[in-house]
């Protein structure tokens, strides 16, 4: 158990006005800005998905032309990955890690603010990439998908340059944030907060940070080569000059596959807190779980080419990537087993965060199973670029990443705002969004197996029923987020006062110091190191 001494001395003055946010060096304020930014982006990315699903309600062209549709595909992915999940996870890291480990703030508070403010700049640049294509002489929309494969991306118009530099800005932001978070975890722990006393969320971000430091420079290098091919006459992705378009796929997925774990791990970290709290039992096999996270991080770095089985790699290479990919199910499976054993014989209650936690275990396992199907080379040659893949990674990323963040939002909203959220509305939101999600993406497994290609604006009438169901589900799934927004605004504006520790089971096992602080915590949580017994 932990015991905390906080000193509310003269340091606790809160800057006023807009300067508080623009010039902030406070981890809570920056965390809040991250979370608000990702919420705004969630609606932008969601709106693009809604337009796509409306277009796909029926076969034939309805509301958007194919070029715009492809642009929506591109932007939906970029916004959701870089604008929603990563900033939300980074916002939670900002808010929670310092107060969990007893640090006064992040290790490098000004750098922290830079990491955040780069994001809106990247957002503006991404929006410009869409806008410029409507100006004359700029050469069409960015229609490559977020993977930006050449030669299409080399031929694309000026919007592609904006996307390339969007990725550069996002990359700088992610690397700086990762450096900051890793340094905070290594250097800023309060005396007595040893490595294996860290809450799992802190561990998850430690590995996420390491991954980001290793993979973001590779993507930056890849898109830089793309830029040079586009404007400076290099031959990197052109076979006529001795280059190779396939190389870009290797570079992209060397980044892209670990990126999946960047999105996933923080949510696993949230689960590592939510499941024990509402099961009122310590996390089962905490230390092995940390080691399995390390194994996931290491394995995740060396299996990228399972995204490109169809490019004509040799048998030996594909076999290696197949076996490596299937091995990943071991650490992931162990994490899920650990959560299940935590619940075993626990005295469970089902508040909203816990509902999301259980849903994640069920639906993310489902994505794991389809993932093994896709990892098997001969099978994947059939599934490749079909809607089956779309269904697979949405089952991986929406429960795996997004629902984990929702669980975190409901778990920590009382701490952040000082008010309890409306439990009844929270449960309605959970059921509404979970059912909507499954209705949207479950039928896509079937249409994909039946041969419907992904990233397509029109489709054969044989897929009409599945797409209709999918679109109906998508509208429900999308609308449910208005309720999400309402719950958050309602909680911020008022409601039942939250105690310091609103969750009965939150002090069991490896816990941080966050529940010992008031809700909401003071502007500066610790001005001197707290003591941990």
């Amino acid at each position, binding site marked *: 158990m932990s015991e905390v001494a906080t000193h509310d001395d003269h340091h606790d003055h809160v800057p006023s006005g807009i300067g508080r946010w623009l010039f902030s*060096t406070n981890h809570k304020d920056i965390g809040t800005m991250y979370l608000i930014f990702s919420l705004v982006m969630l609606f932008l990315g969601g709106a693009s998905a809604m337009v796509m699903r409306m277009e796909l309600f029926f076969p034939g062209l309805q509301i958007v032309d194919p070029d715009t549709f492809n642009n929506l595909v591109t932007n939906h992915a970029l916004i959701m990955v870089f604008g929603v999940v990563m900033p939300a996870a980074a916002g939670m890291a900002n808010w929670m890690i310092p107060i969990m480990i007893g640090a006064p703030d992040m290790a*490098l508070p000004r750098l922290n603010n830079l990491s955040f403010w780069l994001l809106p700049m990247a957002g503006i640049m991404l929006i410009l990439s869409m806008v410029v294509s409507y100006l004359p002489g700029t050469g069409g929309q960015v229609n490559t998908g977020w993977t930006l494969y050449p030669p299409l991306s080399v031929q694309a118009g000026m919007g592609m340059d904006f996307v390339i530099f969007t990725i550069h800005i996002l990359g700088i932001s992610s690397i700086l944030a990762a*450096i900051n978070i890793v340094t905070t975890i290594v250097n*800023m722990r309060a005396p007595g907060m040893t490595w294996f006393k860290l809450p799992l969320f802190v561990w998850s971000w430690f590995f996420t940070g390491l991954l980001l430091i290793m993979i973001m420079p590779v993507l930056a*290098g890849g898109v830089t080569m793309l830029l040079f091919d586009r404007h*400076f006459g290099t031959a990197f992705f052109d076979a*006529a*000059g001795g280059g190779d378009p*396939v190389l870009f796929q290797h570079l992209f997925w060397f980044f892209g596959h670990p990126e999946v774990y960047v999105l996933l791990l923080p949510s696993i970290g949230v689960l590592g807190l939510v499941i024990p709290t509402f099961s009122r039992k310590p996390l089962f096999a905490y230390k092995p779980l940390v080691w399995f996270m390390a194994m996931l991080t290491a394995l995740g770095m060396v299996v990228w080419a399972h995204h490109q089985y169809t490019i004509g790699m040799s048998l030996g290479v594909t076999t290696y990537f197949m076996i490596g990919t299937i091995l990943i199910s071991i650490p992931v499976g162990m994490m899920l087993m650990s959560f299940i054993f935590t619940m075993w014989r626990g005295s469970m209650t089902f508040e909203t965060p816990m509902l999301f936690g259980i849903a994640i275990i069920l639906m993310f396992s489902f994505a794991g199973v389809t993932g093994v199907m896709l990892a098997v080379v001969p099978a994947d040659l059939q599934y490749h670029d079909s809607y089956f893949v779309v269904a697979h990674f949405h089952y991986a990323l929406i429960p795996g990443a997004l629902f984990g963040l929702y669980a975190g939002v409901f778990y920590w909203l009382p701490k952040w705002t000082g008010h309890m959220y409306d439990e009844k509305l929270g449960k309605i939101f959970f059921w509404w969004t979970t059912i909507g999600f499954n209705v949207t993406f479950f039928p896509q497994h079937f249409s994909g197996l039946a041969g419907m290609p992904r990233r397509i604006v029109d489709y054969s009438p044989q897929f009409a029923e599945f797409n209709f169901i999918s679109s109906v589900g998508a509208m429900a799934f999308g609308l449910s987020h208005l309720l999400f927004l309402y719950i958050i605004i309602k909680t911020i504006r008022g409601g039942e006062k939250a105690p310091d520790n609103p969750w009965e089971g939150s002090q069991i096992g490896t816990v941080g110091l966050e529940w010992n602080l008031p809700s909401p915590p003071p502007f500066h949580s610790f001005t001197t190191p707290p003591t941990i017994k």
Partner: protein
Amino acid sequence: MTTDDTYFIPEPSRWPIIAASGVFVLLFGFILYINNIGIGSMIGAVGILWIAYLFFGWFGAVIDENLKGDYGSQVGTSFRQGMFWFITSEVFFFLTFFGCLYYFRDITIPYLGGEGHLAKSNLLWEGFVATWPLIDLPDPTNYSPAKEAMGAGGIPLWNTIILLSSGGTITWAHWGLKKANKNQLVLGLIMTVVLGLIFFSLQAYEYFHAYSEMNLKLTSGIYGSMFYMLTGFHGLHVTIGTIMLIVITIRAMKDHFTEENHFAFEAVAWYWHFVDVVWIGLYFFVYWL
């Protein structure tokens, strides 16, 4: 682990948002510039000045705080670890290009030349012979092929010796710093800066020679592209490193560093050694092998 009694938290600062917006202006101008839109170079120039102002301001603020003695040992450790992870990310940036180099050499070009498990003959460009350095391109229509490849003797060899020596001189300066011998510190740093500038000049001359005599250009197919990408990004880092060295030389002259408190010196020294190691990789894999 913390050692100090109180924590240091900087006051609200305007530099981060100036940095973020400066990056935006610079890149926005650059995009317009490469798309041949006239105003782009103007906006880009404003961006460069903006960023220069930023570095003076932000680093100046940090130096002032340090000289006032605001930082405890924990802040120093945070800075060092931050620099360590930053250099780690730079290592991965360069590994990307080295990886690409060997992907082209060992997979793409042999494959185009008819090797490999699927291509039994070179179907795309019949008669193309796989070689490295690749001078005769599969299809030179859109490229300007080089006359010859860059050799390993001469300037590159001299540059290797110069850069390795500069690693020695900065270590000698560090010894001086630890002995509180200001003359040795400043002299070591000045020698390092001079060696850095000589390296830079020789590299510029080599580029000039390659462009004018050897017709080895960025547009000479994959060998030229890869050569300039690797040596160019290295040269950029040498330039940044040299600027950093000049700054800490001035600071050393102003007695900013003590035996215990010299993070900036260490950070620049690490960075310089990193640039050094990258060059050794370049010399072996790009020039020699």
